[in-house]
């Protein structure tokens, strides 16, 4: 057990260092931005009519006059104490904004994650097992098409078909307009189209990779031997087990792309989630919020890969024994 703990501790330290790197990189990039927060948010005309005192006050609010190193260190200091600052656009604590937005996005992300994983694995197995025949061609053709379309365009198409033509699903937002307290059913109805868009794009990628793995495994010597012995249920007994490891990697690695996709999809469907907050923070030069979102997103991605690393041992006895032997 001690080696498991040691392994986890090592990974956690690495993750913390990576998070530090992400926050520093994001901060430096935002700091390098030539866009003046005053110009973007207040506007040239309004600035022209302001007194110098007012401008100085605004500059202080947007933090335009403090040196960069001091700003980063003070941010880091409070971040370690669990305070990510105050969003300049929403005028509320960043953590509060992120928490609220994430809880809206989380349903979307979780559904899409599970759905795309299951769909991708299933289609990948189907295609790989029927290599060269029509199921393979069909699955590969569809997946290639989907992965060459931008996620937001796919969202637009679904929007045109289901919301504008057929009028069976709402055109956007997470709850009905002016709806007050929305029921679960209504929330689901609003999450259906964005969730579907995200799942389709995610599943295509996973299916294509799974297919490659399945083909690799089916070409291996042990499958040939198993066939020669006249074994049946090769797919379930051999292929599925050997594909499990890369499938887990793919599934957890897809978190990053899923969040990236949600930025686009939420923008198309005006879904008030984390991705939309990231876009408005970026366009409005809201540095604390954008920094917070970047760090939280990176933490989710690193957390995913950590989980995958820990799961390897549970899935593959060779890795478990190898780690124990060391």
């Amino acid at each position, binding site marked *: 057990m001690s080696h498991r703990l040691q392994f986890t501790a090592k990974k956690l330290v690495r993750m913390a260092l*990576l998070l530090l790197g992400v926050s520093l*990189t*994001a901060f430096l*990039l935002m700091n390098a*931005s030539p866009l003046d927060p005053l110009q973007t948010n207040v506007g040239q005309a309004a600035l022209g009519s302001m007194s110098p005192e007012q401008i100085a006050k605004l500059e202080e609010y947007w933090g335009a006059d403090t040196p960069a190193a001091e700003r980063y260190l003070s941010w880091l200091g409070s971040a370690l104490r669990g305070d990510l600052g105050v969003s300049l656009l929403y005028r509320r604590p960043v953590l509060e904004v992120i928490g609220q937005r994430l809880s809206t996005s989380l349903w979307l992300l979780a559904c899409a994650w599970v759905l795309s994983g299951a769909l991708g694995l299933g289609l990948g197995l189907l295609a790989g097992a029927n290599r060269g025949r029509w199921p393979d061609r069909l699955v590969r053709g569809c997946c*290639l098409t989907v992965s060459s*379309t931008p996620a937001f*365009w796919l969202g637009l*198409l679904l929007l045109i078909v289901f919301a504008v033509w057929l009028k069976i699903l709402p055109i956007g937002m997470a709850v009905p307009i002016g709806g007050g307290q929305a029921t679960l059913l209504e929330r689901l109805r609003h999450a259906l189209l964005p969730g579907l868009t995200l799942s389709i794009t995610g599943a295509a990628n996973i299916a294509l990779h799974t297919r490659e793995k399945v083909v690799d495994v089916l070409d291996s010597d042990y499958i040939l031997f198993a066939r020669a012995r006249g074994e049946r249920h090769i797919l379930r007994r051999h292929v599925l087990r050997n594909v499990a490891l890369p499938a887990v990697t793919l599934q957890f690695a897809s978190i990053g792309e899923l969040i990236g996709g949600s930025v686009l999809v939420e923008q198309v469907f005006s879904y008030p989630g984390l991705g939309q907050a990231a876009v408005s923070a970026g366009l409005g030069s809201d540095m604390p919020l954008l920094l917070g979102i970047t760090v939280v*997103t990176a933490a989710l991605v690193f957390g995913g890969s950590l989980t995958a690393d820990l799961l390897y041992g549970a899935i593959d006895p060779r890795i478990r024994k190898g780690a124990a032997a060391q």
Partner: protein
Amino acid sequence: MKNRRQSTLLLLLLAGGALCAVMLAGALQPDAAADFSQKNLPPCLAHPFGTDWLGRDMLGRTLAGLSLSIRLGLLTSAVSAAAALALGTASAALGGWVDSAISWLIDLVMGVPHILLIMLISLACGRGFWGVTLGVALSHWPALARVLRGEALQLRQAPYLQMARRMGVPWGRVLTGHIVPHLLPQLWAGLILQFPHAILHEASVTFLGFGLPPEEPAIGVILSESMAYLTTGRWWLALFPGLTLAATVSLFALAGERLRLLLAPASAQE
């Protein structure tokens, strides 16, 4: 199709031809002029893709946008493939702390979703053309770099390279004579496979408002403008530009996939 090599060649030629045709069409045709007598026309013979709310021909705008996207895609995927090759081989050849640092960097860049990273880099450059170009170029190398590093690390252990080292061949010669040629197929395929990604991300970031300015006829700009007109039923504004983009991208994805199969020794003879 006779055999896979011929069909791949045909596909590559087709992709190259489409590339040149679109680039030429985009460069040669005059700017789509606004003509208010022709506005909001659904697709017809004179305007196969319809016209927009200013009466501009959507076919012309799409071609111009695609041409810009293709040029951007070529530039960015070439830059990121070169970066991936340099970092991947350096990591494998030098080992030690260089390897750790590069692996850390790869993990770092892969930890932030592409879109978010491109947004950040684009902000750092003040948005616009250079923002999106640098953003896409600097965010796409890690996946390929990781593949190349893994390949090169494996190669280092290969008996013939061990032998070369023992016989006193300097590292530089091993690198240029053995390792890099071995990685080239992966690199070419990676380059072509990165191209569609680059175009898609460029369009996506432009769509979000961090990329090219609205007066440029980029595909992302066209699609994000079309969003405002969707509810009034002008489907052609979004459908045709998107379809052309998807067709171009999938042509390249397909060509890259075929090339990868053909260049990899294990699957070349199938």
